[in-house]
């Protein structure tokens, strides 16, 4: 008997900031739409375990997309992208899931993202709560940890966009984000995905992750969780957005719910999905009950 995952993949054309992008997405399941966003420099493959989880897909249509320049979403055709430095902005980060939702005709989807996708979950809840019934920030916060922010884009490019450094090192660097309790196969898979990224893309994504996402206390206080509920999940081994950073956000957003996750790091969805789903499933149950 041939074995398949229950995942199908397609390309959709999205126009963002006047540029048409051919965007790859995979989906599985039916029901409430759940858009899932990947981490900086990686792609939607991170969600393969979630896409195969029948307890999720029986009630949710899970849609994992690759941002342009990531995974199977090539750079836009007709744009001389090689003549400019790639950087991800806050406006563009917000625009892509919105455009995807419009293109697929989704009715107030849930958005869940990890790392820069986690920060984005906070920005979506703040800037367009009418579009989403809930967002789930995995490793989200007001901003990333100051020790990393202080490195600056020049330091980031020296490490992650350096012609002296092989792309294997970007994968190796992800060890800093990963819990020592994660199965080694999963650790190596995360590193593989990072080693596969396009040149300069991880570094350019970090512009949003470290600098353009910078939520003020007032903005956090103004998030209306009665319109768009904000759930927060953060792994205890994440040095970039530790539980301390997420707690600071949770303390400001009225009604937000936060769970620190034991023995998980910055990539909980891939590091150890069996542990992560113990935190995720009750959230999805609550969203379903409130829908």
């Amino acid at each position: 008997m041939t074995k398949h995952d229950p995942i199908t993949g397609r390309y959709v054309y999205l126009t963002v900031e006047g540029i048409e992008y051919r965007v790859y997405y995979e989906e599985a399941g039916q029901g409430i739409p759940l858009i899932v966003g990947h981490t900086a420099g990686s792609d939607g493959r991170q969600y393969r375990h979630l896409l195969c989880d029948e307890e999720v897909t029986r009630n949710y249509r899970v849609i994992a997309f690759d941002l342009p320049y990531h995974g199977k979403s090539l750079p836009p055709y007709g744009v001389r992208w090689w003549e400019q430095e790639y950087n991800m902005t806050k406006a563009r980060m917000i625009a892509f899931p919105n455009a995807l939702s419009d293109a697929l005709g989704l009715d107030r989807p849930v958005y869940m993202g990890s790392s820069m996708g986690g920060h984005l979950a906070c920005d979506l809840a703040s800037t367009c709560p009418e579009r989403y019934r809930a967002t789930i920030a995995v490793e989200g916060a007001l901003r990333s940890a100051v020790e990393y922010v202080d490195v600056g884009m020049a330091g980031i490019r020296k490490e992650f966009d350096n012609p002296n450094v092989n792309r294997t090192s970007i994968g190796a660097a992800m060890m800093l984000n990963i819990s020592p309790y994660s199965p080694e196969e999963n650790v190596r898979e995360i590193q593989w995905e990072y080693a596969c990224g396009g040149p300069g893309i991880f570094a350019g994504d970090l512009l949003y992750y470290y600098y353009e996402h910078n939520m003020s206390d007032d903005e956090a206080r103004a998030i209306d969780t009665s319109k768009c509920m904000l759930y927060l999940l953060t792994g205890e081994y994440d040095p970039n957005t530790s539980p301390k950073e997420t707690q600071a956000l949770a303390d400001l957003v009225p009604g937000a719910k936060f769970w620190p996750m034991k023995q998980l790091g910055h990539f909980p969805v891939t590091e150890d999905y069996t542990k992560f789903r113990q935190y995720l499933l009750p959230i999805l149950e609550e969203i379903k009950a409130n829908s």
Partner: protein
Amino acid sequence: MGLDCKAFAELARGDFEFTRETRYLTGIIKLEFGGGIVWALNFHNGVLTLVEDGVAVSDSDCKIVVGGRSDQWESLLEDKPLPFYQCLQSAAVKHQMKLSDTNETFAYLPALNRMTTLLRQLKNGRA
């Protein structure tokens, strides 16, 4: 901490991943363990030729320098370290261990990660 540099050298030379990830490296990786214990790992074209006492080796003569107090190394080399001792980079940023920022440091991160794993194996009697 009682790590044996000869045992490390033997382990490293027989390790597929470490020998692959140090390919083409020529120069010294210096490890400062605290308490005056310093190793200088000498490489020539990717081959670990010598592990010697590195007290007299200056940082400027090294391609990569890693250092910390003995208690920091104890934490780093636990089998299941506490946050954020999971690797050299997180321990440097969050716990102030020393890690150079040369091009070679970034280029040979896969080797440094593997070296940490081998040191953990040695410390915890799994080598």
